[in-house]
Each structure stands twice: as structure tokens, then as C-alpha cells.
């Protein structure tokens, strides 16, 4: 609790980082309120780790400033910042035992009686009694928890997590996600978590910032981002979307009419990021429902005819591809909640959705439909490293 002070929001103002001619982070401005769990989500190479390293002090911004509370920490050496990092590689000291690894930060700050705190911290991460072991004797998951304990014991104002779960297998990763969230709630420290796993970001974080090419595409609560994405990138990075190219003709009576490949649809004005000109009409696959004929479409729903070209059963849902008249394949997720019969491939169907479930995004002129066309869930974009 050494350097705790109220109002310690983390703020990045116009931060740019260039490596030679490559701009890793491009005029990024961001505020992370104190005590929140914040996730930086993006594919590899999007600048999220560079952003994290600038907060840690391991990289110096080319321009811009980093504030912690009122203090400008842009040029502060890493060892002078009340910020600690859980590294992707864990970076445990191989020549020190677990207890000394955890005590490292306290000792460097001149604390002598650390045994009690170390024990407490090892208990917090479920590693009681592992103190005398060496890092090499621990499994990946255990090493990950040591790295967490080693950072947390210093009670930093901000804890930075650089893909800390990337090297763990799926089951362990899920457990650690819950565990990290619990620890964050318990200690109340600001967590900034970098990940390429959209599911991980959505499960854990209060606020998610989706990064692309050194910039933030959208920032908000996970549900907000998923429900009403700001860009085509976010719409397809965070889950899947069917984005159909269309043209909007301005608002009329609270709705935006859209012309899509000859068909007319409407979207409520409050769900339109663009109301005129080229747009993408977006609908999430699980918001689409399949029926046999136009007569079966509930009143008030929008609909589109097509033919089922692929169906794959994933247990919790069945994922269909439906080819429209103009050849684009829509992805449709049908929940296997009982009562629905599987639709065989080749069946003519009508896909329908409620207008308030669709959204409109601005589209570059000439850009066509954007559908993932994959029946399986894109688990992670970008290779886990």
C-alpha cells in the first residue's frame, strides 16, 4: 500500500510510438479509471503490447504523455513507477526460489521482513508451501501464478498483464480468468490486460478497448461493444457479424431505410452510425432466425430469402450458412434449445430478424458484403505467441 493515492486514473494522451518507419501506436488517447479491469483487445501487431510497455516504462513514447493520477510518468524509469507487470513469458528469475522471486520487488525497495507478506501472497494465488522451489520445477500455470504474486505483492497502482494466459491450455485459462477477476475485485487495483482473445477480454474486463493498427477502434463495456459495434473491424473481431452492403437515404420517422441488393430494410436511427450514403447493414448470426416461408415471419420482422448451403451441429447451437439470391452466404446460429428441427442442406428458407437487432455502419464506397463465411467460431484472431 506504499504509494496509494486517490484519483489515480491512468491516462494516455496523444501517445505515439514509432519503430523506424513503422508506427506501432498512433496518437492514442485513453483513460483507465482507477480500480477497473480494463482490457486492450487486438490482433498481434496492433500495438497493444507496445501501449502496455509504455505504461510500464519499458518503451518511451515517440510523442505524447502518460499520466498516473496527476503525475506525468512519461519519462519516469520503470523502476520508479508504481506499476508492475505480469509478463507473457512470466520472466521468473531462474536463480531464485519462488519465495525470493515473489519478494524481489519488496527487497529492492529496502523492506527486510517480507516472509509474512510472501506467504500471504502465495496463499492468494494458491501456492502455499511452494516458496522453497525453483521456477523450473513448476508447471506453466503455477509459474503464471508466481508471476502474478510477484507483481501483486508490491500493491502497484496499476497492474499490467501482457497476455498472461496465452501459454496455458484452454481449461486452465478459463480457471485463471475467473481467478484473476476474483483477485482484481479483492485487491481493487487497476488491471490493464492485453489479450488477443475476445472471449477472454469480454469475460474479465469492465471496459474493453479494441485496437487496430495502433489506434483504438472502439471502447466500452463488453455488451455495448458486442451489441452495437462502431466499425466493421469491431463487428467481426468481437464475435461474428453479417455485414451487407447497402445504401441509406437518411432518417425518416426515427428509422433509417436501407436498400440492400434491391431489398428494402429499416434500422432504428439510434442504431445507425451512418444514415446516408454507403452503409453496412449488420446483424449478428444469433439474431437471425430461419423459417420455411415468408408467411411464417412474425409481423414487424425484416426478412431475406435464401438456401441453406451448410449446417454444422456444435452441440449448443447449429450453425447454418444461408446463400442469398445474390450469392452472399449469411451465417445463422440456431440455439438447440429444443423444439426446433434441424434444417437440411438445400432447403429454401427465409431468415428474419427484428429491426432493433440490426445496426448500420459506414461503408467505403465500392466495398461489398462482409461475412465471415465460417461456420465455426473464430476462436482467436492472430496467432497466440
Amino acid at each position, binding site marked *: 500500500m506504499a504509494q496509494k493515492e486517490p484519483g489515480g486514473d491512468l491516462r494516455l494522451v496523444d501517445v505515439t510510438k514509432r519503430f523506424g518507419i513503422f508506427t506501432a501506436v498512433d496518437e492514442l488517447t485513453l483513460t483507465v479509471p482507477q480500480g477497473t479491469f480494463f482490457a486492450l483487445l487486438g490482433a498481434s501487431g496492433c500495438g497493444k503490447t507496445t501501449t502496455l510497455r509504455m505504461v*510500464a*516504462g*519499458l518503451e518511451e513514447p515517440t510523442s505524447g504523455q502518460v499520466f498516473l493520477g496527476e503525475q506525468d510518468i512519461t519519462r519516469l*524509469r*520503470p*523502476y*520508479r513507477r508504481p*506499476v*508492475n*507487470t505480469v*509478463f507473457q*513469458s512470466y*520472466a*521468473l*528469475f*531462474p*536463480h531464485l526460489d519462488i519465495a525470493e522471486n515473489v519478494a*524481489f*520487488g519488496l527487497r*529492492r*525497495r529496502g523492506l527486510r521482513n517480507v516472509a509474512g507478506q510472501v506467504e500471504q501472497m502465495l496463499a492468494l*494465488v*494458491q501456492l502455499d508451501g511452494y516458496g522453497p522451489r525453483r521456477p523450473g*520445477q*513448476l*508447471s*506453466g*500455470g*503455477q509459474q503464471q*501464478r508466481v508471476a502474478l504474486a*510477484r*507483481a501483486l505483492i*508490491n500493491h502497484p497502482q496499476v497492474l499490467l498483464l501482457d497476455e498472461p494466459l496465452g501459454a496455458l491450455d484452454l481449461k*486452465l485459462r478459463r*480457471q485463471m480468468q*475467473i*481467478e484473476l477477476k*476474483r483477485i482484481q475485485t479483492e485487491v481493487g487495483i487497476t488491471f490493464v490486460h492485453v489479450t488477443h482473445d475476445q472471449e477472454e477480454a469480454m469475460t474479465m474486463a469492465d471496459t474493453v478497448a479494441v485496437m487496430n493498427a495502433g489506434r483504438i477502434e472502439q471502447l466500452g463495456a463488453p455488451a455495448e461493444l458486442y451489441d452495437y459495434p462502431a466499425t466493421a473491424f469491431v463487428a467481426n473481431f468481437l464475435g461474428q457479424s453479417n455485414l451487407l452492403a447497402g445504401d441509406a437515404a437518411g432518417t425518416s420517422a426515427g428509422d433509417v431505410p436501407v436498400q440492400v441488393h434491391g431489398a428494402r430494410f429499416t434500422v432504428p436511427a439510434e442504431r445507425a452510425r451512418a444514415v446516408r450514403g454507403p452503409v453496412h447493414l449488420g446483424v449478428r448470426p444469433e439474431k437471425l432466425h430461419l423459417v420455411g416461408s415468408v408467411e411464417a415471419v412474425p409481423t414487424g420482422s425484416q426478412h431475406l430469402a435464401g438456401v441453406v448451403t451448410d449446417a454444422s451441429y456444435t452441440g449448443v447451437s447449429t450453425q447454418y450458412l444461408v446463400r442469398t439470391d445474390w450469392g452472399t452466404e449469411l451465417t445463422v446460429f440456431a440455439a438447440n434449445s429444443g423444439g426446433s428441427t434441424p434444417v437440411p442442406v438445400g432447403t429454401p428458407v427465409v431468415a428474419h430478424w427484428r429491426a432493433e437487432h440490426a445496426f448500420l455502419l459506414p461503408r467505403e464506397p465500392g466495398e461489398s458484403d462482409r461475412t465471415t463465411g465460417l461456420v465455426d467460431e473464430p476462436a482467436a484472431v492472430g496467432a497466440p505467441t
Partner: protein
Amino acid sequence: MTLLARVPANPAPVAPLRRGRYPLLPYLLLLPGAAWLLVFFGLPLVQLAATSLYDPAGSLATGYAMTWAVDNYPAALQAYWPQFSRSFLYAGIATVLALLMGYPLAYAIALKAGRWKNLLLVCVIAPMFTSFLVRTLAWKTILSDNGWLVGLLRDVHLLDADGRLLATPVAVVLGLTYNFLPFLVLPLYASLERLDYRLLEAASDLYASPVGAFRRVTLPLSMPGLIAGTLLFFIPASGDYINAELLGTPNEYMIGNVIDSAFLVRLDYPQGAALSFLLMAAVLAVVFVYLRRAGTEEVL
């Protein structure tokens, strides 16, 4: 909390010993080296041990009688005690000097040299392409009374007007330092090169200043290389006689010079053999104490 308790610790996989179709193959592969070692090291060592116990009254002309003359040892030690201690003193000082020069050098090559790394390594090894003797003779020229170095030092009054470098302990220690430096730098480089810079970032993130990170992370992790390097330096340096011979006077003679003269000049074989064993024992004792103090179980 309870979730994690159920995560089992991954037991380290034990690689099964490979029992191929040729179980004797490893021993066959050992054979040439082992035979070489036996014929050219093991047997001569036994012969040397026997020689050290011959009757010192004999000579090459009259032949030596095996009298188990254990007295050869204390006698040799008593006669050449100053050369013994001088050997370890000079080799010790040279080791410290070499470490002071070699550590920053190895550190710079391993961590800071970038694309110059290989070129710098070649520079470290390059002197080895000329003979040890030639290099030491070159030092004789450099340190000579008429050389530019002595002239310069006299001009800036670091040396008296008649002060000299050649034929002094300084010259011998400098020669030792120079000649064995690569043996210290190379192992040190190898261990620093393996150092994961992310550990230094982690140390820095955990409040270690650059000096603190060096003391707590870099230095301990380079310890195996440092120990191997200082041993590879100290052991040949303490047995060396060329540097004292060419750069010093009999006042700077080390134990190597005494052994050299016992075998080749005075033809006192039992004494030379006894001194050789004493040197071996002394070096082993120094190494043993050093390793115990340095506390790295990895080396031994």
C-alpha cells in the same frame, strides 16, 4: 480458490532411456578418446608419480633407483617456496585484472554489440592465431626500455627517468593478463549471451535500478561463466613460465620456471616431478576452495 486447488501439478516428463539395438555403442564411441587419455595422460602421470619418488642421488647418466623417497616433496617445497607463492600471487592478480577487463568486454559483446558481435568475438580469438611465444616476444618489444610505452610513461612522469617496465613483476603480470584473457572472456560471453533480457526488464519493473538489476540478476546468472572463465584463466596462468622467462628476471620466476629448469637444465628429474605434483595439488586445492566459496554446485 477451490478451482485452482484441483489443478494438478504437471509432473516433469521422464525421458525413457533409449535402449537401441546397439547397447554397447556409447562405450565404443568413448573408446578412442579414453584410449588416448590413458596412453598419453594416465600412464605418463603414473610414470611422473613414480619419478617423484626416485632416489634424488641418481642422475640421468647413472639411472634412478626407486626408493620411495617421500622426502622429495618437503625438500622441493622448502627450496622453492617463494616461487610457489609468487606463481599464485601473479596468477591471482592477473585473474583479477583480466576479470576487470574481460567482464565489461564479454558483457558488451554479448548484450550491446548487435551486428558487430561476431567480428568482436573474432578479435578476441585472433591473437590465438599467432604463437604464444611470438605474442610474448612482441610484448617484450612493447615494454622494452627504448620502446614508445616506457618513453611515454617517463615523459608524463608515471615512471622515473630510469624506471622500466621490462624485467619487473608488472611486466610478468601484464603478460599473463594478456595471454590468457580469451580463456576468461569466452565462457563469460557464452553465459551472458544466454541471458534473457526480459529478466532484466522484469527486474527493472520490480524496482531494481540498473545497478541493482546487474547485482541481483545479471551477475548471478553469469556466475557459471564467470567461474569457468576465471578457472580457465587461473589454472594455466599459475603454471606458466614463458611470461616470467621473457618479460621478467629470475627474481620474477614462477614455479613453472623452476620445473622447466629441473627437467631441462639441472636434470633433477625427481625434484621436477615432485614440484609438478605439488603444483597440481596446490591448484586443485585453490580451485576446490574457490568453488566452495563461490557456491555453485553446477560447476562441479
